[in-house]
């Protein structure tokens, strides 16, 4: 083992998912005891990079990766996260992987419990060893001490505050004997300020002990405060790799969101509106992972209104809440008429339509044909595509009309399929998205919510989807609210863009403002706006 080699080095790591390049030539290294800040927008490739490091099975299932990973100078390639753990690489996930009914001790030592010998092991194997509770307690205490927090090791996780859960999880990684490198994925997102403070302190302590840390965070302040080196990823490439003391928040923000200015030409002409159409007051939505806390908006008739922000900040909660798919409260008015919440039917009756970000679970009937998918909402809500039978005694599905409308949209949106009777699950992501759009268009809504319309689809389809939306807006005068993580996409199509941060609007700007302004809003760095903290 060469002492000069860095602890971890990645050389030209490249990864594509079926031709869709998500990582290109990523090279960096991290020394013992170094804290590396990894930042980037959602979809920049951070998660994929970590998945490659840990040898998650998804990576192998999708054809592996290119390039090399060296741990202490030796090339490594893990087949499963467990192998990475054996080599001393630990990860703390965003979503807790803790057992609620187990105590902190039991969770920290999960599957690594201290045990005592008894004779039964000779007969039935090592798993018959009995737990050594006393020893486990000491080990857990030691690990908790290492994190540098006060935590009762006998409390069941279900009774812990969120911060303690996070600490428990970190303690679990630290308890592993040979831990050299720790990956913390957004550890502070769920913590209160004082808790985050404690965590940062303990990170510093760990780095002094020689443990390297890869710190993924959207809170740039923390990145600046604690890391030795900052790495900015965008579109699968390393945009910036600098010692942290030589950069500042603005520069990082710029690097994160700034893009080549090719889209600039497509920018919509500047339009002005003055007829408020949809008014939202003090909306809260309880959507797991996308909580909306307090949002007020005023959207004009005929406008394309963009909502952006980082993942998990609540932008997706807004349409889901207004459309009644998640518990919500507050006030929503259309043309002065209040729309009852928590009932999708009311929302649909108010001539709103929604293209969900979750195509597979919400947007489509995967096991049913395309024509069903397109016509279903229209049939249920507006009693269309039905034909009277026996002199109007009752009405049956009009398969002909359904097929016709499907064919119409297949043509209009260039949906690639074999026939309108093809099952939705057999389509590619882009074509599925078009089906979802067609379903919304069929009901001819006054207000159309489109959530992440281009997520996971290829460039060509992206353009068709965006163009279709724009065209639809221009032709029918439909108010469109588009929610997307891709700022440039929003800027290319919207009139105004609101940025959501921590469940609140951190600012609303015309789409023509420079990217950097939005970038700062996303990172919660602008204090001038009223209700951001």
């Amino acid at each position, binding site marked *: 083992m060469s002492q000069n080699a860095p602890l971890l080095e990645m050389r030209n790591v490249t990864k594509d998912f079926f031709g869709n390049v998500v990582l290109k030539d990523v090279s960096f290294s991290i020394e013992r005891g170094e804290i590396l800040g990894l930042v980037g927008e959602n979809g920049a490739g951070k998660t994929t990079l970590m998945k490659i490091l840990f040898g998650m099975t998804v990576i192998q299932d999708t054809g592996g990766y290119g390039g090399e990973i060296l741990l202490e100078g030796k090339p490594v390639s893990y087949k499963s996260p467990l192998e990475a753990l054996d080599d001393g690489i630990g990860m703390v996930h965003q979503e807790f992987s803790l057992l609620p009914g187990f105590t902190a001790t039991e969770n920290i030592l999960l599957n690594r419990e201290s045990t005592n010998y008894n004779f039964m092991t000779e007969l039935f194997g090592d798993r018959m060893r009995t737990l050594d509770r006393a020893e486990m307690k000491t080990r857990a205490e030691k690990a908790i001490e290492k994190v540098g927090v006060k935590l009762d090791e006998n409390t069941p996780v279900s009774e812990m505050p969120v911060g303690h859960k996070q600490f428990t999880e970190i303690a679990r990684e630290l308890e592993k004997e040979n831990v050299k490198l720790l990956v913390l994925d957004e550890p502070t997102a769920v913590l209160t300020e004082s808790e985050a403070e404690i965590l940062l302190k303990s990170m510093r302590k760990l780095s002094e002990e020689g443990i390297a840390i890869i710190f993924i965070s959207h809170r740039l302040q923390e990145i600046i405060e604690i890391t030795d080196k900052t790495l900015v990823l965008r579109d699968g490439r390393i945009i910036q790799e600098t010692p942290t003391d030589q950069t500042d928040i603005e520069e990082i923000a710029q690097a994160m969101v700034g893009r080549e200015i090719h889209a600039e030409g497509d920018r919509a002409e500047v339009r002005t509106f003055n007829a408020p159409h949809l008014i939202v007051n003090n909306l809260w939505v309880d959507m797991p992972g996308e909580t909306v806390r307090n949002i007020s908006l005023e959207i004009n008739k005929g406008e394309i209104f963009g909502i952006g922000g980082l993942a998990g900040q609540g932008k997706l909660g807004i349409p889901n809440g207004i*459309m009644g*798919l998640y518990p919500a409260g507050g006030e929503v008015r259309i043309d002065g008429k209040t729309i009852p919440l928590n009932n*999708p*039917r009311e929302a*649909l*009756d108010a001539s709103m339509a*929604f293209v*969900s970000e*979750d195509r*597979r*679970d*919400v*947007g*489509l*009937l*995967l*096991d*049913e044909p395309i024509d*069903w998918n397109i016509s*279903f*909402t229209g*049939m*249920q*809500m507006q*009693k269309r595509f*039905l034909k009277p039978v026996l002199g109007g005694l*009752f*009405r*049956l*599905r009009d398969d002909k009309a359904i097929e016709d409308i499907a064919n119409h949209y297949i043509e209009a949106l260039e949906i690639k399929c074999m026939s309108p009777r093809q099952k939705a*699950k057999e389509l590619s992501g882009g074509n599925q998205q078009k089906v979802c759009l067609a379903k919304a268009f069929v009901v001819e809504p006054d207000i159309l919510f489109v959530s992440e319309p281009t997520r996971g689809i290829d460039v060509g389809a992206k353009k068709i989807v965006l163009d279709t939306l724009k065209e639809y807006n221009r032709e029918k005068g439909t108010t469109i609210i588009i929610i997307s993580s891709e700022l440039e996409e929003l800027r290319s199509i919207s009139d105004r863009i609101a940025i959501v941060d921590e469940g609140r609007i951190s600012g609303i700007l015309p789409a023509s403002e420079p990217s950097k302004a939005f970038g700062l809003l996303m990172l919660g760095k602008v204090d001038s706006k009223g209700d951001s903290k």
Partner: protein
Amino acid sequence: MNPLQKVVEKTGWPRLIIGLFLLSLFIIAPFAGVKISTSLNDTLVRFGMNGILVLAMVPMIHSGCGLNFGLPLGIIAGLLGGTLSMQLGATGPMSFFIAILLATPFAVIFGWGYGALLNRVKGGEMMIATYVGFSSVAFMCIMWLLLPYNNPTMIWGYGGTGLRTTISVEGYYLHALSDFLAIRIGDFVFPTGMILFVLLLNFLVWVFMRTRTGTAMTAVGSNPVFAKASGVNIDRTRTISVILSTWLGAIGILVYQQSFGFIQLYMGPFYMAFPAVAAILIGGASVNKASILNVLIGAFLFQGILTMTPSVMNSLIQTDMSEVIRIIVSNGMIIYALTRVKKGAK
């Protein structure tokens, strides 16, 4: 993939094996000295008897409530209808229609309650349905003893109170359907009325599945979140499907009785759900997808095996293994379906 594989894939191994097994039974039968005409006749009759009970699976499978192990609840509604019709003194074929009429409100009420319960336990429907079926049968055992029926053909002869375990429907609705337009060729009797009635109900359900509500039902079963986002009231749709299933169960048992000739009370309906569940699965349905074709094929295959195995086996090896074969085939089929759920979806 060659065409043969494709056929196998589409039909599914179990259905293919069972189909071939039945076919081989029909081929062997003449050599074993079993009369084809009687076997075919028996198969047809049993197909008619059970067809609607199998059909009762369809609405609930469609709306995502899983296999209707709670069929006994519907059967109980049918039993109430049948016994009440007799109690009220209706006779002849008329009593059959009165029975259906009387069973309907019970089926609707039971189905509504049962549906409301299932809406509160989404995800655990099948096990709960089984035990709801069992407990309602056990509860009705008490009721059959206590309810003040007094038609002498129905109550215990020796001065006791309570209904008999088996009540003959002779003079009431025995063969009310079976004899309608029945065609006799030698000892082969084609129960036209019953078959027509079964086909009619199958057709009605098929039509219902094409209405707006029926379409919503399929969507709820296929993807409840999608349905909700499209403005469908999921709980209401599920409840309608359960009511429909229960009502079909009630009619199913009445059709069964008019052919069989007896009303079986007390523990009679206890295990009745299982053959129906097995039949529709053999017909090619899965826990969350079923069609009318599955009903017809399944009822025919399953009942065919039940009729053919004992007669052929008996004459071949002088041993009646039909009961054992029935248990293994039907439950094996259910296990097969249960272990295969959710492949592809999600």
